[in-house]
């Protein structure tokens, strides 16, 4: 009986809804964001391709179908990034293809050993391949160097989709691949990602890179929750994926608006946004609050669920708490530099376009509000009942974290010199992303000699050698 390509299950509907919300908001936002008509038209078309591939990936039943649709979404994203920045897009594609090859190798192994269905966990010996392949997608530490570069330079709606959903596909792969007992390596990786991402975000000079690193840290939360291996853990991971997707989408939209009004992404060029863009500032405050997990916002509910899932692993949840402080610092920084401070000269963008962009952010808020006000709804949908979200201890804890973040930011503001020096050293060492893609591109170009006969020669020669090797 040929098993069906697609299967609908509870834990897949929520991500699909998230994808739908993000794509709808991005569509509205994209209309206002792109200046040239062709860019807008290209973005519209590619958005639909992305949505098609994502829905296919989410509801896929076997690993191969999942792989195919994930790769289609990668290509769609590559083209979307290439609308404005071709070199970064090429780098992104090459890195993702490397990851995909590991992932495909894993799938091949899995299908040989049986268990190619997405529902059945992957045999243990293949887990490293899956982790490597999906890790590139989900930006695990060590494989994350492309994330800030790509998210930082991609157009705002595209990076919203990228960190809102595309990165999460890797997490879904983990959820399907991990056996249902805690996976120590991923737990550690998740915690490390959360801490590293949060504090690197705080040091970034550029709004989008800040958001990119904070995506990495939130991913750490999700990976840690997924690695918990319990039913609650999976539910927490998916719930936080949804919340983070929507919130990060809003934040990237807001970064796009700032970029359009002030013409630059750098904090040095930003300032006085509250006066110039009152609506955007209000939406930013809501998004930032939700990401910090202040009570009443969906972030609070999802982070609470994650703490619930990581009940047994106290060191991990402590790291996540510290990471939360780092996130608080970075968002206070973004708020203060971008929206507060001295008023820089904003360029007048057409009122209609601003309304469109704000409309995009507003749509996401509409999806976020029910998640925040009825925190129990999503976990119950995912099969986890009876979680007490609102207890005095939890509220106090989250508020104290926000307070600590504010104090830390105030201290950092007094002497910024120390942070900038630290930042520069880390940056050079960490991501020599561009040099990797340059060398890769140059090698590929040199191999393509353009001699049609050369390609034929290579093909025939390799086929012969393979045949001889196999038939010896």
């Amino acid at each position, binding site marked *: 009986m040929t098993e069906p390509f697609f299967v609908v299950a509870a834990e897949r509907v929520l991500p699909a809804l998230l994808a739908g919300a993000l794509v709808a908001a991005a569509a509205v936002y994209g209309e206002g964001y792109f200046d040239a008509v062709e860019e807008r038209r290209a973005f519209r078309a590619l958005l639909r391709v992305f949505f098609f591939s994502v829905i296919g990936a989410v509801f896929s039943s076997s690993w191969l179908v999942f792989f195919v649709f994930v790769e289609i979404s990668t290509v769609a994203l590559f083209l979307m990034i290439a609308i404005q920045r071709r070199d970064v897009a090429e780098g992104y594609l090459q890195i993702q293809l490397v990851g995909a090859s590991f992932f495909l190798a894993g799938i091949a192994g899995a299908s040989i050993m049986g268990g190619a269905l997405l529902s059945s966990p992957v045999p243990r010996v293949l887990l490293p391949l899956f982790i490597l392949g999906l890790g590139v997608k989900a930006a695990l530490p060590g494989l994350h160097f492309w994330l800030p570069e790509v998210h930082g330079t991609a157009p705002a709606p595209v990076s919203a989709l990228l960190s809102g959903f595309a990165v999460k596909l890797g997490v879904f792969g983990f959820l399907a691949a991990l056996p249902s007992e805690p996976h120590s390596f991923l737990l550690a990786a998740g915690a490390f990602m959360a801490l590293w991402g949060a504090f690197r975000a705080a040091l970034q000079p550029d709004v989008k890179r800040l958001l990119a690193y904070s995506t990495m840290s939130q991913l750490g939360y999700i990976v840690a929750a997924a690695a918990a291996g319990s039913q609650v853990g999976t539910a927490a991971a998916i719930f936080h994926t949804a919340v983070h997707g929507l919130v990060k989408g809003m934040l990237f939209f807001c970064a796009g608006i700032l970029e359009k009004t002030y013409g630059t992404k750098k904090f040095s060029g930003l300032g006085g946004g509250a006066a110039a863009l009152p609506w955007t500032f209000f939406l930013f405050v809501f998004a930032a609050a939700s990401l910090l997990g202040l009570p009443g916002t969906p972030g609070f509910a999802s982070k609470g669920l994650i703490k619930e899932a990581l009940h047994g692993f106290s060191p991990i949840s402590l790291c996540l708490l510290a990471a939360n402080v780092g996130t608080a610092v970075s968002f206070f920084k973004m708020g203060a530099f971008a929206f507060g401070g001295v008023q820089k000269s904003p360029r007048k963008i057409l009122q209609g376009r601003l309304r469109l962009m704000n409309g995009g952010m507003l749509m996401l808020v509409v999806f976020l509000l029910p998640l925040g006000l009825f925190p129990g709804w999503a976990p119950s949908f995912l099969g986890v009942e009876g979680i007490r979200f609102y207890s005095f201890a939890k509220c106090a804890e989250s508020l104290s974290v926000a307070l600590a973040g504010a104090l830390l930011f105030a201290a950092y503001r007094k002497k910024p010199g120390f942070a900038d020096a630290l930042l520069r050293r880390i940056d050079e060492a960490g991501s020599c992303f561009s040099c990797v893609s340059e060398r890769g591109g140059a090698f*590929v*170009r040199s191999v*393509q000699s*353009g*001699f*049609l*006969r050369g390609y*034929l*020669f290579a093909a*025939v020669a390799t086929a012969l050698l393979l045949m001889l090797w196999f038939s010896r």
Partner: protein
Amino acid sequence: MAVMSFLTVSLLFALGLFTVLSRRNVFKTVIGLTLMESAVLLLLISWAYIPGGSAPILPLQGKGVDPLPHAFTLTAIVIGACDIALAFAFIMKLNRFERSVNVDDFRRLKG
């Protein structure tokens, strides 16, 4: 007898491959392709021959030769002719653009 046919087939095919690989002129590539195709035809027909068999036209004198490869070869020849006709059309069009028949000059699609 069969060994001789197989030897000719492999030599003919290798000759076609050699032409396509080494010659720069596009017409020579077409010649190479034709040689390769005729090598395949020869293989099919020589493989279909049964010693002592007669042509597959009823009433058979003695046992008939295997008619199935003949049908395939017939189709192959006709389709091969269509390919080559299309190849010539491409060559004429390419020549109109590139003013040369040197296969290494057609590099517009190079990455």
